[in-house]
């Protein structure tokens, strides 16, 4: 039997396609990102080694770098707060058997997730268009003088694109939390009810602490989502007005595809990867099981 299952030829044939595919399109590219970030390279001619020059320029001299990080932060905060708060409320609601039309709510909240980002951006672009968008039209028809230049204002544009992302992906975190709640046993709530806890209290002391891992993952997606933000920005603002909505990915995109400065663009990618890694590690450290009053219930529960 051992020999049957260690058929060398079979192992190679079964593994090779996946390994090759992964190496060629994911693993080698990520190595290249870091490798070429030390070079001055236009993508065609010989690359020249420049040491840390790209990093020095990006981190210390490029004014857009600061804007990009600030935008990543703003974007991250908007989508984290919006998605996590709403997703938690809605997930608790549709998991409660006393609420009616649960199936409908579930579908309604999730559906934007299955749309393409380009469709969502076109839709919201039409809603938020300053001249003839749905929202400003609605305002003026209702006689409210509050028309805004949603996508062309230096100060608000980044929040607007972040909102569009938050709107589309709220349903994803919602589904994650619904699945998390499903895995909590009913008896916890029954016990809480017997103890006389209101359902709000029961959720605060049972649901939220028990969903620690789910929240860790949700935070991971939305915080790194801010740093990685790109599609909405590319489609709706093109980084503008000026460079008000630049993010790290957009710097890479602009330098690599617009100006043929591949080395410098990849430096921005490298910083992006490092920032994401730091956030993953920080969140895992923050959510680690330890003597934390908020999460102390966790220990005894795991067996169930």
């Amino acid at each position, binding site marked *: 039997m*051992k020999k*049957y*299952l260690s*058929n060398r030829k*079979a*192992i190679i*044939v*079964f*593994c090779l396609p*996946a390994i090759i*595919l*992964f190496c*060629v*399109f*994911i693993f080698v*590219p*990520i190595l*290249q*990102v870091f490798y*070429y970030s030390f070079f001055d390279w236009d*993508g065609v001619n010989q690359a020249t080694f420049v040491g840390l020059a790209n990093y020095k320029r990006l981190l210390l001299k490029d004014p857009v770098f600061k804007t990009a990080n600030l935008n990543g932060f703003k974007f991250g905060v908007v989508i984290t707060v919006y998605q996590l708060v*709403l997703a938690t409320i809605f997930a608790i*609601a549709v998991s409660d058997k*006393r*609420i009616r039309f649960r199936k409908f*709510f579930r579908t*309604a*909240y999730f559906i*934007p997730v*299955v749309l*393409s980002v*380009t*469709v*969502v951006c*076109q839709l919201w672009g039409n*809603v938020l268009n300053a001249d*003839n968008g*749905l929202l400003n*039209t609605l305002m003026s028809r209702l006689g409210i003088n509050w028309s805004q230049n949603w996508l062309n204002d230096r100060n608000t544009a980044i929040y607007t694109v972040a909102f569009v992302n938050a709107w589309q992906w709220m349903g994803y975190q919602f589904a*994650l939390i*619904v*699945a998390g709640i499903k895995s909590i046993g009913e008896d916890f709530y029954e016990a809480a009810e017997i103890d006389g806890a209101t359902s709000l209290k029961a959720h605060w002391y049972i649901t939220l602490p028990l969903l620690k891992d*789910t929240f860790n*993952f949700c935070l*991971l997606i939305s915080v790194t989502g801010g740093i*990685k933000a*790109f599609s909405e920005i*590319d*489609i709706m603002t093109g980084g503008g007005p000026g460079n008000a909505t630049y993010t790290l*990915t957009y710097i*890479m*995109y602009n330098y690599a*595809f617009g100006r043929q400065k*591949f080395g410098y663009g990849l430096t921005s*990618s*490298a910083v*992006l*990867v490092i920032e994401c*890694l730091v956030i*993953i590690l920080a969140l895992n450290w923050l959510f680690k099981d330890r003597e934390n009053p908020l999460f102390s219930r966790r220990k005894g529960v795991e067996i169930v």
Partner: protein
Amino acid sequence: MKKKGSGPRQYTGVSATIFTIFLWAYAIFSLYPLLWMILYSFKDNTEIFQTNPFGLPQVWRFENYVNAWNQYDVPLYFKNSVIVGAGTVILTIICAMMFTFAVTRLQWKGRDAARTFISTGQFIPVQAILLPVVQTVAGLHLMDTYWSLILPYAAINLAFSCMVYYGFFKGIPKEMEEAACIDGASIWQTFFLIIMPLVGPATMTIAIYVFLSAWNEFLLANVLVGTTAHLKTLPLGVLFFQGQFTTDWGSMGATMVIASLPAIVVYCLFSEQVEGAMTTSGAVKG
């Protein structure tokens, strides 16, 4: 409120009412842009912008769909999306299934290392590797072919798919291979005739998830085929209308509906699998 006999007690009172209104309000907020898109796909520019932006179309202009289909290359985008979606699903499943079989059922040194290696793909942002992937695709002379999208898409979905398979493969009892071995089946026959049918539900989940993600993908498609007219997929086709001097908004709406409908239908038919797939990635990643 109806009394439901022995059923669970319904909430009553002011705060419950406010909460219910809130749930409905967000449901409308979530669905209305979609509904609005469907409605304006039946309107002309005047109705969309001036006379009737919110309500039902005064005249249902089905010709918007005919125009989109005949004048704006929508059939081409559709065909490309179907080919890329199907190709990605098939390639991802073949690679992921064989690989997971090898690391869970076969016995060899380094299988855990191999599994960990592939699973690191989960943490690599596609945004970061955009440029090297384009270079690689160009270097392999795959530009101007469907492979330029199918291969990177399959690579991106690999880590996730292996993870979903992993749980399933682990759950198959060892006796399966033992019995097959005693009956004289080769390892290949065991894989194709016994194991493959057993992981059917996982395959289904992965197929749906991977298809949806390929169908909607924008980031890579934009840089890989954004300038290659005959390979554009629907998400790029939707953007074609942007920057036209006189946009035919009705036809654009129709194109967006055509692009979204297959994904919505797939979700409505397989909502369990779609949500299941997405939440599996959450459970393990976190």
